[in-house]
């Protein structure tokens, strides 16, 4: 992957393919909105967006969580069941004993940080470790909430039920999420080190930075955004079950890739990832139902969109 880093300065010489690639996630999203507007003009309205994009908020947060892990060249396959576990805590302990619930959530983020440290210290494949952790979180979720149910705290439901005039709340929320992710990754020294670890961790280490701290930071950030995703999810659903977030692992990875993130090399884009997450949410929930395609094909549509966008990206040129 070192070639990519080496050719990077060339990007400024041949601007057009690079710009096309960067614009691709937003073009896909615009096309998706156009298709929805064409199929059902009434969906493009204040109420329509509130309904269609509600679930985009937790998906976007889960995507940013995954983005941090992918930035340091790892992959988090436990994200979905982590979100499930936090959701189960949120509808049980958090409402009855806010202090205990908060403590459990902070402890879970600490476990995330520890996993990052373990992966780095023992040089382990993140896929295997996080796959193992997905079983652990799933087990924890079942222990907390053996049967579907529970009740999200009022304040959480209130927060997700906010209606602001003129602009649908989910749109403001996802733009804010993308902006926060962008600022952390692109505008702070920590973000630069994280991306550096993804690009060339040996160089980062030689420059005097601790790769261990960087990886812990990336996993901690993933834990924090995972928690936010779970909280926003139960704010919408009001109840939970142990499998509520199971689909989020793959959805979030797909969102990152759709948003122009490279799988290695620390080349990621937070606004792009959020656009990718919104595109996938719109595709699976709204577009298919407006096209009267049975929900059986929801997951398949996500796969197909992924393939099409990647094909377009390959056609534009792999290395700008």
């Amino acid at each position, binding site marked *: 992957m070192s070639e990519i880093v080496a050719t990077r300065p060339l990007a400024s010489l041949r601007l057009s393919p690079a710009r096309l690639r960067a614009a691709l996630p937003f073009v896909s999203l615009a096309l998706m909105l156009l298709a929805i507007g064409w199929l059902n003009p009434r969906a493009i309205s204040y109420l329509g967006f509130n309904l269609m994009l509600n679930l985009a908020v937790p998906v976007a947060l889960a995507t940013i969580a995954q983005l941090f892990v992918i930035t340091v060249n*790892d992959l988090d396959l436990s994200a979905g069941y982590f979100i499930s576990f936090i959701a189960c805590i949120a509808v049980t302990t958090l409402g009855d004993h806010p202090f205990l619930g908060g403590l459990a959530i902070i402890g879970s983020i600490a476990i995330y940080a520890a996993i990052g440290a373990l992966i780095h210290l*023992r*040089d382990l*494949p993140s896929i295997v470790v996080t796959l*193992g952790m997905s079983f652990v979180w*799933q*087990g924890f979720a079942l222990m907390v909430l053996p049967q579907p149910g529970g009740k999200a705290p009022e304040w959480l439901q209130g927060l997700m039920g906010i209606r602001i005039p003129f602009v649908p709340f989910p749109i403001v929320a996802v733009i804010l999420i993308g902006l926060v992710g962008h600022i952390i990754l692109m505008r702070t020294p920590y973000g630069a080190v994280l991306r550096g670890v993804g690009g060339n961790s040996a160089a980062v280490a030689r420059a005097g930075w601790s790769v261990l701290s960087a990886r812990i930071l990336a996993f901690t950030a993933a834990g924090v955004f995972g928690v936010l995703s779970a909280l926003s999810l139960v704010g919408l659903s009001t109840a939970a079950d142990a499998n509520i977030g199971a689909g989020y692992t793959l959805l979030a990875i797909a969102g990152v890739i759709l948003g122009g993130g490279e*799988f290695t090399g620390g080349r990621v884009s937070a606004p792009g990832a959020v656009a990718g997450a919104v595109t996938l949410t719109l595709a699976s929930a709204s577009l298919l139902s407006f096209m009267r395609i049975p929900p059986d094909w929801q997951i*398949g549509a996500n796969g197909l969109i992924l393939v099409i966008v990647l094909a377009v990206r390959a056609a534009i040129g792999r290395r700008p």
Partner: protein
Amino acid sequence: MTALRREFFAKPWIWSFMGAVLVFMVSLAFTGGAGAGGMAVAALSLAAFAVVVGLGQMFVISLGPGNVDLSLPANIGLASAVAMKIMGGSDAWILAGILAACAGGLAIGLANYWLIRALRIPPIIATLSMSFIVQSIDIAYGRGLQVKPPPAFADFTDWRLLGIPVFVLLVIAITVVAAIALDRTLYGRSVLAIGQNMRAAWLAGVKVERIRCFTYGLCGLLGGLNGALLAAYFRGSSVDIGNEYLLASIAVVVIGGTSVAGGRANVPGLWGAALFLVLLQIMLNTFGADASVRLVTTGLVIIAVITAAGGRRQLR
């Protein structure tokens, strides 16, 4: 004696067999020796399923960093439905059903490779996209499918030879063939060469793309075969029949001593690791642990084993 000892410790997969024996002993001590035969047969049968997909995953992972097949669970689910539908409960169609399941799996594997090659994307993303698509096809195709396997096919999973299920012996035979293929054939050596250094292998004249194509196809085919066998064993197909084989296929490869960095594979270790994981589940069952405890323990054990064994490089 020291040479023997060195030989022993040089083979990390022996540990997985020792772990399996240990866990088996603990379960037997708990039950007071009751049900040892039934436990062993159940463990062998369930381990055989993990080994079939583990073999495919092992060849794929051995191709080098980043190579992994995430579409196996969807593939297995679809294959189980295809096999049951083609057989339609009739003994005459058993072979056709198995062949159709294998052909479907092979097609998915080749499509995986085509995506990797044509779109120039990492295998994880290619096989992930493919698994989304295959999963949807399976949901649409196999929903509410209530076809039982033909009586002869279902009975086949109960046939015994010297007390060991015949299909387990068949899987052992497949493993032996795979071990020989890995060590003694051009194909096996090529896979390992690509895993060690793809460019060097290409320069040395290895038909890199042909081998990669064949490997992804093989992995898909074994997934299809596993789907058909599972449907016979569990007396019917289901959409999520393959779900546990995402972790299982990767875990048996890693615990079995195959390098996640590629270029080094270990076939006997697959059996040790599969038996270990299955017997662990059986042990927790005999303890009366509920599903949540079994999940947490399995996850922690996998992390503990990989931590103890240590990795060299990322599976990315």
